[in-house]
């Protein structure tokens, strides 16, 4: 695949992880990469890729074996995301969000809830989405306004969610809503599994985006949507802490996506620098181009090493989970933006047109600096781990 990455990664990965990575790499190269440009051009959710990932058990990676999953740890899931994103960032989001939307259940779901929802999620029969963000609640997630009012054996949900990835194709959405407006800021929210379609639920519109264009980003409205009490994840008031614990585990997935996008861009840039001749020589033999490629490779490898370490740290459940999670996403997202921008530069005019994939990769990279916490929020999380919460 023209990779310039480490030849013997077995030293840092288990034999099992290497086998799974190679299988996903082959699948991404042969079946997903040829579709990537069309998915982007037509802004259409790739149902065929979803079915492919489901049939090959890739969507089962984050789920326990006893519920039909593959039982992959965080690092294994991230390796798979990276390999898919190397070919197509939109397609990698199918796995990322299948995990993101299911994490509240993985973290805080009851045994009954896990047994009820995981088999369909692990097999890919239904997709999950994560419903936290609202028009007025982005980085400030605790300011969610969607209400959930208890009525007998149900809660009744009213409100609007925005920028919900896969919100229009998901079968379940883990939705965060206010159950106690008078509680302290971080005890106001609860988390619910909303099974769609259901009465009062509507997909209001899909966004027109700069990148990840095949991934539907939906605005969802909830008007008197009834959700059984049995679908509440955790206790009332646990919502905010479930959301934060979810993001601690999901940000590495975005980091993996960013690293995959960057690696795909480097693969293209290296191949081009070998083939393209100007002034009678390969452009890669010009020192200015060679130095760009070297910096790109070193940057990607540094981000990858940080991600792998972060995954192990997060999986071990140490107290520093939020910091590791924020650091790997921060470094990987910025690396992806820089590397893809440089890849366009290496290809020159050919990088700016859609004959080559790097302009798409540059557009796709930008979102990794924004979603699941902007880079500014990541820095805030890291600084708080260093300094503690602000005084006063």
């Amino acid at each position, binding site marked *: 695949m023209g990779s310039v990455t480490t030849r013997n990664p077995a030293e840092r990965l288990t034999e*099992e992880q290497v*086998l*799974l990575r190679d*299988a*996903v790499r082959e*699948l991404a190269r042969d079946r997903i990469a040829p579709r990537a440009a069309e998915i982007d051009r037509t802004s259409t959710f790739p149902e065929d890729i979803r079915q492919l990932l489901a049939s*090959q*058990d890739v969507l089962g*990676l984050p789920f326990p074996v006893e519920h039909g999953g593959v039982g992959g740890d965080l690092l294994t899931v991230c390796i798979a995301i990276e390999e898919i994103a190397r070919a197509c960032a939109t397609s990698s989001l199918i796995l990322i969000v299948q995990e993101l939307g299911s994490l509240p259940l993985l973290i805080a779901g009851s045994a009954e809830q896990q047994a009820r929802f995981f088999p369909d999620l692990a097999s890919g029969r239904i997709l999950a989405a994560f419903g936290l963000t609202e028009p007025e609640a982005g980085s400030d997630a605790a300011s969610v306004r969607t209400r959930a009012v208890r009525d007998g054996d149900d809660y009744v949900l009213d409100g609007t969610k925005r920028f919900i990835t896969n919100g229009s194709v998901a079968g379940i959405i883990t939705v965060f809503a206010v159950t106690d407006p008078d509680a302290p800021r971080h005890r106001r929210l609860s988390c619910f599994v909303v099974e769609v379609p259901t009465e009062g639920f509507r997909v209001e519109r899909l966004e027109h985006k700069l990148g990840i264009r095949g991934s539907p980003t939906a605005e969802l409205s909830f008007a008197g949507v009834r959700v059984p009490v049995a679908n509440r994840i955790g206790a009332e008031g646990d919502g905010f802490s479930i959301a934060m614990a979810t993001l601690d585990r999901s940000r590495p997935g975005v980091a993996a996506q960013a690293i995959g996008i960057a690696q795909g861009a480097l693969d293209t840039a290296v191949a081009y620098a070998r083939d393209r001749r100007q002034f009678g020589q390969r452009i890669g033999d010009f020192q200015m181009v060679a130095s760009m490629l070297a910096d790109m490779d070193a940057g990607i490898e540094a981000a990858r090493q940080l991600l792998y370490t972060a995954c192990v740290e997060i999986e071990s459940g140490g107290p520093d989970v939020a910091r590791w999670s924020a650091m790997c996403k921060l470094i990987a997202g910025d690396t992806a933006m820089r590397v893809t921008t440089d890849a366009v530069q290496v290809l020159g005019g050919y990088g700016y047109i859609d004959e080559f994939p790097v302009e798409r990769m540059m557009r796709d990279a930008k979102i990794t600096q924004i979603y699941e916490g902007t880079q500014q929020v990541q820095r805030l999380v890291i600084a708080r781990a260093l300094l503690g919460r602000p005084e006063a």
Partner: protein
Amino acid sequence: MHIVVLTKPVPDPAAAAERLGPDLRLDRAASPAVVNANDEYALEAALKLTEAFGGEITLLTMAPAGGSDTMRKALAMGATRGILVADPALAGSDTRSTSVVLAATLGDLAYDLVLAGADTSDGGGGVVPAAVATLLRLPYLGNAAKIEPDPAAGRVRVRSFTPIGFDLLEAPMPALIVCTQALGEPRYPSLKGIMAARSKEIATRTLGDIGVDAAAVGGAVASTRVVETRKPPARGATTMVRGTAAEGADAIVAFLAERRII
């Protein structure tokens, strides 16, 4: 229904990294190996048959001990188990030795069908399946584009490609069938299949186990030997034709006519 699929590890054509040792034999340590692509089509056909009729699939490979690594991928696709015939005395075997060894190993197995790929991407002889069928006196059905067993009747029907269409052949089972790519694209191993393959059995057999005299096979008695190898000549300058199909066709015709090739 029990199906044996003949598989061979070959140098990975995608890696294009094969090296020959000083004896002009493949330096396997330096050449990344994969399952021969045509054998994967045979395995895919076997998987479809066992999905439809039930049963098991045994992979049969003659290769050095490292051959079990490539068999894992075939096991991940869904084969039940593998048998690897490995013996130092087999180094340098020609197609005759290979056929004798495979036939002797099959002699100890119970099966309804033996499926094989049309040929291999390294040796390319394409005679081993026919030789195995001959040695075992099995019905030989070549160029299979469709395989329809009737287990109750103990017979199998094969649609066999010919230059002008196809023949419909019927034979009693057990029989040996040479598969074509018309049987369908090989599946990718699923992640669960990969995990499951790690604990599937690959039994190793030596020449002693299968009752073949070591002096009768291998490089010493090979009927052919490689006396010299040469790299293909470097390709000349390449002309790229861009444009619509019609423009491309015009440009190619003009190119050929200019050189009086057409």
